[in-house]
């Protein structure tokens, strides 16, 4: 009980964060949905984008926009919006399946090294939580850990010791996940190729082409320079690609 009270007090300033949807934007959303159901995907996409421009950025709008691009055959743009929706709803089943479907249709098969794939599977919670949830988990784990430690100081009980160890572990793991998400957020992040074919060169300019990437290929942005991005693929390949050929997630 003490833990809950103390934790709530400590987290109270943060729990009241968030904004409420503007109900006046619902008609535009409904119009967009109608256009989509009438197979007018370009019109539907325009309306979803209007909603985003108006500040109504939600996982649902981003997901629907991704669907529009998928229907128009633009895999890269679809993947970009699906990934943006994932920040809001990282565990939505339909979204995950759509992402898998887009990736299965992408022309480039870029497989990460085996050990990285194993690590990714081991740290599955990192991908199940968005940045906000990860930061709240850090706060909660932090509060419970220290409160447990306080209790342990005055009452040395076995279950309290176990609580301290457990939440200490949760704190470390969630802290690492949060730190990774923060690094990714503050850096250039990831991007997706959104053109039919894009050349990847050895330098930012008229350099030799080392390989080509196609619509829907995922890449990590390392550096930005003069209209070019230095990129790195999951399989370790590196190069430079024109900014106009990709869209950041």
């Amino acid at each position: 009980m003490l833990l809950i009270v103390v934790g709530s007090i400590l987290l109270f300033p943060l729990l009241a964060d968030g904004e409420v949807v503007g109900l006046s934007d619902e008609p535009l959303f409904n119009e967009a949905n109608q256009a989509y159901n009438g197979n007018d995907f370009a019109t539907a996409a325009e309306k979803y984008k209007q909603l985003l421009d108006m500040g109504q950025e939600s996982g649902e709008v981003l997901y629907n926009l991704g669907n529009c691009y998928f229907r128009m055959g633009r895999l890269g743009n679809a993947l970009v919006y699906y990934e943006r929706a994932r920040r809001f709803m990282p565990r939505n089943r339909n979204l995950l399946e759509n992402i898998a479907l887009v990736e299965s249709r992408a022309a480039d098969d870029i497989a990460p090294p085996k050990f990285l794939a194993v690590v990714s599977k081991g740290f599955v919670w990192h991908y199940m939580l968005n940045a906000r949830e990860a930061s709240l988990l850090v706060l909660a784990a932090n509060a419970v850990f220290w409160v447990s430690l306080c209790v342990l100081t005055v009452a040395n009980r076995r279950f309290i010791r176990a609580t301290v160890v457990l939440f200490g572990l949760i704190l470390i793991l969630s802290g690492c996940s949060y730190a990774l998400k923060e690094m990714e957020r503050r850096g250039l992040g990831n991007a997706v190729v959104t053109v039919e074919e894009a050349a990847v060169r050895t330098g930012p300019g008229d350099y030799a082409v080392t390989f080509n990437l196609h619509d829907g290929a995922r890449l990590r942005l390392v550096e930005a320079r003069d209209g070019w991005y230095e990129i790195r693929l999951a399989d370790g390949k590196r190069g430079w690609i024109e900014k106009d050929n990709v869209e950041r997630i």
Partner: protein
Amino acid sequence: MGRRLILVLVPLVLAVASLEASAQISFTASVDKNVVALGDTVVLTLTVAMSGQGQLPDPELPPLIGFDLIYEGGTSKEFSYVNGVMTTSESRRYVLAPKEEGEFVIGAATLRYGGSVYRTGPIQVRVVAASQLPEQVPTERENFFCTLAADKEEAFLGEQVNVYFRLYVRGVQLVGEPRREGPATEGFLRYDLPFTIGREIQNDLIYEVVKLPIVLFPLETGEFTITPVVLTGEMKVPLPRRSSPGVLRDFDGFFRDRYTVERYRLVTEPVTILVKPLPDEDKPPFFSGNVGSYSFEVSSKPSQLKVGEPISVTMKITGEGNIEAVNPPVISDIEDFKTYEPEITTNVVEKEPVFKGERIFEAILVPQRPGRQVIRNVAFSFFDPEKEDYVTLAKGPFEFNVLPAPVEPMRRVVAVETGPGKTEIKVVGEDIGPIFTEMGSAGRPGPVEGVGFLASLGVPPLAYAFLAAAVGKKRRLASDVAYARKQRATRDARKRLAMATRALKRGDGAVFCGEMTKAVTGFVADKFGVPSAGLTAVDVREKLTSAGAPEDLVKRVTDLLEACDYGRFAATAHTPGEMASMLDGARYVLSELQRVLGRSGVADDR
């Protein structure tokens, strides 16, 4: 004879005598040379031509003064139709050998036909010694030369220029293939065409001509020089004949060539071409550099289709110009279409004198939205060098009825349990999930951050730090007596002073002094960890002095203790005022002792 073989290409007619002929008959005589060396031969040709049908009569030879008739060289006949009238001609050749040097006249030959007599004119022939006849080595200018020429001196950028290299040969026998260097055509796109062989007349002389056409398209503006062609090789040069006459020796020479092989080197003149830029005036905005004269056709299919299905737009360019380099036409209004690089087919029909053919572009457009889609026009622009003006040909509009795309067959992507705690996304269908019907909450997906976040992170460990310190202190107080006494010293001293204050107010001097003594000695005993009972002023002095307390403080403490001792045993030893002063003094010394021996001051509890 050797000379006769050399002249096998085309015999040269040096002198022709013609005779007045009837409307139906023409009778002519000619020789192949007017100057002949003694020992050589001259060929007399008598030609009878008759229009209409009939048997040609035989001519009669003229008197051959100064010549021997070696033999009759043969007869050739020729038939021709002119304006519906057939003409028959027959030529008879007579080989004559001169007998001696001098000027001779071959008299008139005679032809009798239809009651008329036809005669040729006399022919003069000069017979000279063999040594007096110039060497029959062909000179460059006369019998063997080459030229390089362009069909125009000025051209627009991209306009076709034809350059011809010609090798003229007359009576020359080449040994092997000649070697050609050049021409260099920097600044031009070049097509070398196959050479042709023909005949040309230059200065009344018939030449065998080898013609090599080179088609050029200027790539840059300015003045360009096409470098000369250099032709090298070997040729046979006949040796001069021996001067001794005699038919037999000549007969022997008739069958044996006498020549030497010499090298030759022919060089043409260079050719200069001025390439003019295309005019800027009236240049269409989407002109892409096409030069020539073209026609343009466009077709598209289908006109009704679904979203995502392709439209094929076929654009055919036909005409004259560098058809292989023609750039595609421009299609307007393709914002709602996905486009692909067009497929190109080129068919060149002819390259010289004019490059001509057709080039077909097949563009694929994929509509992205349903409804009526219109391409307003497809335009093709080129510069016509003949008109010296730009021409734009446009076709359209093209309308398409685009129906919505069909629903794709369902194939779901699902997470499949592949083992304990393991899931794998598997594609079991081909469709994406449905859209959301609720808009959801707009919010920030980013992490919680800011002062509140930092405070929430920092407060728990701070609270733990304070708690840990407090609990630790408590435990020490419980376990460490000396430490506890030191911590309690000030508090206990204050209690004693409070009791002394109450005694003072009651006027009980003995109790006052007793409490005062306990306060001071108890404080010192707690600070030093010694029993307070039996601690005398002397002991206090020693303790304080060993702790480095100032001497005056030590004296004040001992004086206070002595005064309290006196007051304990003599109830009226001190007046209330003195006792109040002693109380202040006690507070002062305790405060100073606290400072010297440890922290915290003594609070005023009066």
